[in-house]
């Protein structure tokens, strides 16, 4: 039962530091370097303030951190609620092996979003204010609550991995019993939160470019986030097989790819319908940053991956799947960046390019997230065949075993 395939059990004291570093590998060393130097950059940002360290200003109150770290990060974390619901609510137990990695990605993703948000807030030590200072008319208030509640839910959904890893099986069983209501709560939070990031922009009605400003923003954000989340899980499955020698059934990944294609198709239909009904669209504009960005975002970031994944023969190719998932993920991130930055360019009347520190901090947060995933993958039972079986399903308990927990 207990994940005995641990790495470095107590032998570490005998090895020299150099040996340990070598064992870590270049990739992890680079991630550590990025995370640690980025940590220093974060301290510098907090000490010196936003003006001295970022390119934000009164014309650009929101920049890279909101667009990429917060808006993009939340969208990529959507895979967690989709897979959790699919497995635990819709009864698609076949997909269970994907649930733990997806939930971990979501959990780490939300922690990364909070880290980015803390960097962006002018007074980060007041981040708890929305808990006691209520303003229910504000979309940001809703966003704050969804982040808080859903991060808690994700911690709960992830806890069986940690509890099993620590050998606390009694607690693990107790957690499992409350799993279904928590998964439902997670779905509610996610539906509200993914869409409310789009609703957030609705108030900027006189500032945003109509290529992105639409009454459908909440729906578009939700649908595209589901597509991006499904894309992220595919990328993870690929990483799991390469880095951790954990083979995910190709059939399952194909299922994800098919789901992603459907969501992308729905997104395309909504986006194009929205453009046409409002008399907008990149084709109505001369060539500009706005029209090119909107066109690329939709053609390369949504239409192309949807097309690739809609053909069965292409969907069965691991390489094509990887490319399509990557394009969809990048496409949704591009959409968030376009919505927050490109669409407000004309109204700002000035250009904005993130500062090196802004990018560096983002890099550090991403590196820390990857390292966190890596640590869990190597130390705790992340890749198991049938995790989180529902109470009463005794047969599932038997088959829970760690798979390929060795690092490459």
């Amino acid at each position, binding site marked *: 039962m207990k994940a005995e395939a641990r790495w470095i059990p107590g032998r570490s004291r005998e090895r020299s530091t150099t040996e340990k570093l070598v064992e870590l590998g270049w990739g992890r060393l680079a991630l550590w370097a990025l995370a640690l130097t980025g940590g220093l950059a974060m301290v510098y940002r*907090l*000490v010196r*303030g*936003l*003006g*001295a360290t970022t390119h*934000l200003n*009164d*014309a650009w*109150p*929101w920049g890279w951190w909101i667009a990429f770290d917060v808006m993009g990060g939340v969208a990529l974390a959507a895979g967690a609620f989709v897979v959790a*619901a699919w497995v*635990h*609510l*819709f*009864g698609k137990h076949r997909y269970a092996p994907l649930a733990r990695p997806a939930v971990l990605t979501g959990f780490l993703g939300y922690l990364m979003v909070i880290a980015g948000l803390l960097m*962006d*807030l*002018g*007074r*980060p030590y*007041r*981040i708890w*204010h*929305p808990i006691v*200072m*209520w*303003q*229910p*008319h*504000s*979309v*940001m*208030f*809703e*966003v*704050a609550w969804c982040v808080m509640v859903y991060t808690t839910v994700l911690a709960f959904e992830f806890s069986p991995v940690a509890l099993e890893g620590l050998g606390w099986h009694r607690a693990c069983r107790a957690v499992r019993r409350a799993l*279904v209501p928590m*998964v*439902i*709560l997670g*779905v*509610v939070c996610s*539906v*509200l939160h993914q869409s*409310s990031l789009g*609703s*957030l922009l*609705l*108030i*900027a*009605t*006189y*500032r945003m470019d109509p290529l992105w400003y639409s*009454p459908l923003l*909440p729906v578009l954000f939700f649908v595209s986030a589901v597509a991006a989340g499904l894309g992220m899980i595919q990328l993870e499955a690929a990483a799991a097989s390469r880095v951790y020698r954990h083979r995910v059934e190709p059939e399952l990944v194909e299922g994800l790819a098919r789901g992603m294609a459907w969501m992308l198709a729905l997104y395309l239909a909504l986006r194009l319908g929205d453009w046409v009904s409002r008399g907008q669209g990149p084709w109505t504009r001369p060539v500009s940053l706005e029209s090119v960005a909107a066109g690329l975002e939709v053609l390369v970031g949504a239409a192309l991956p949807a097309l690739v994944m809609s053909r069965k023969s292409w969907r069965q190719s691991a390489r094509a799947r990887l490319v399509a998932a990557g394009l969809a993920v990048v496409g949704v991130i591009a959409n968030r960046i376009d919505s927050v930055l490109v669409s407000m360019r004309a*109204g700002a009347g000035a250009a904005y390019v993130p500062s090196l520190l802004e990018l560096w901090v983002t890099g550090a947060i991403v590196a820390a997230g990857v390292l966190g995933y890596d640590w869990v993958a190597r130390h705790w039972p992340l890749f198991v065949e049938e995790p989180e079986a*529902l109470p009463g*399903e*005794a047969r599932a308990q038997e088959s829970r075993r760690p798979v390929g927990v060795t690092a490459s």
Partner: protein
Amino acid sequence: MPTEVRGARTCPLLSRRALLAGGAGAVAAGLSGSLAVPALASDPATGGDGSFGMLVDLTECVGCRSCVYACQEANGWTGDPERPAIDGDQWTAVREVELPGDPGHVRYVRTQCFHCLDPACASACPVGALHKTPEGPVVYDAGRCIGCRYCMVACPFHIPRYQWETPLPLVAKCIMCAPRLERGESPACAEACPTGATTFGRRSELIAVARKRIADHPDRYVPRIYGLTEAGGTSWLYLSDVPFEELGFASVGSTPPPQKTQAVMEKVPVVAVGVAALMAVVRWWEGARESRDEARDARERAGTPSGKEPGA
């Protein structure tokens, strides 16, 4: 053009104090006539909702910046009031705009918070740090602010500023001298204005004054009161002899931005309950199906038509 006097700065060398002491009262009275500062606070029963507002008549502004000096003093800011734009430590500013079709001729445009009737910033703020008082000002509670700057993104007029250079910044914007209003005084800038370009009063009365000026001098004003309907109406109203767009005023429709988010926020409880109910039903349905399947499997294995099955 009847605005020749306004073409040049007439009093840049006069000290602010001299303006306040000397010509202010006389000039203001002469130009705007009937507008007396109304009795405050104790007088809720005047026209409209009784809230206060400001009327800025750009044809009357000579660019002396008395309003800015008064604002800096009243609110304890020490920066240079001659700066042309509002900032983290300057809530109002006077900008000199050269007229596009008329080189050499300028207008002086005051900028500050417009104090919307339905303010986007207040609707956006997640912690209620901004709110509209019944008297008219949109005020800021610095103790609540977390610094998310959503108010800055929400504002259709690009007004709230941030103190970017400090490690622990606050949002900065005109609060229409709300503390002075509470004491029964008028805002510092209106009191300081020597020409009556900025006048203070009940919004409903100011609208009547503005309409009368346009009607009396149709050759002098563009027939528009900026702020009457912009973003659903603002407490500050502007009159001008030059189209507002040429002076850099934002083109803002008449829908209050909060309406756009309100429509969505109203659906949140319904969506939350609906999604939760849907998911519960799906889970219940799937659970029942699984139990049925398992019972059938068990029966088939046992070879008996009925028996005890797990999880039923």
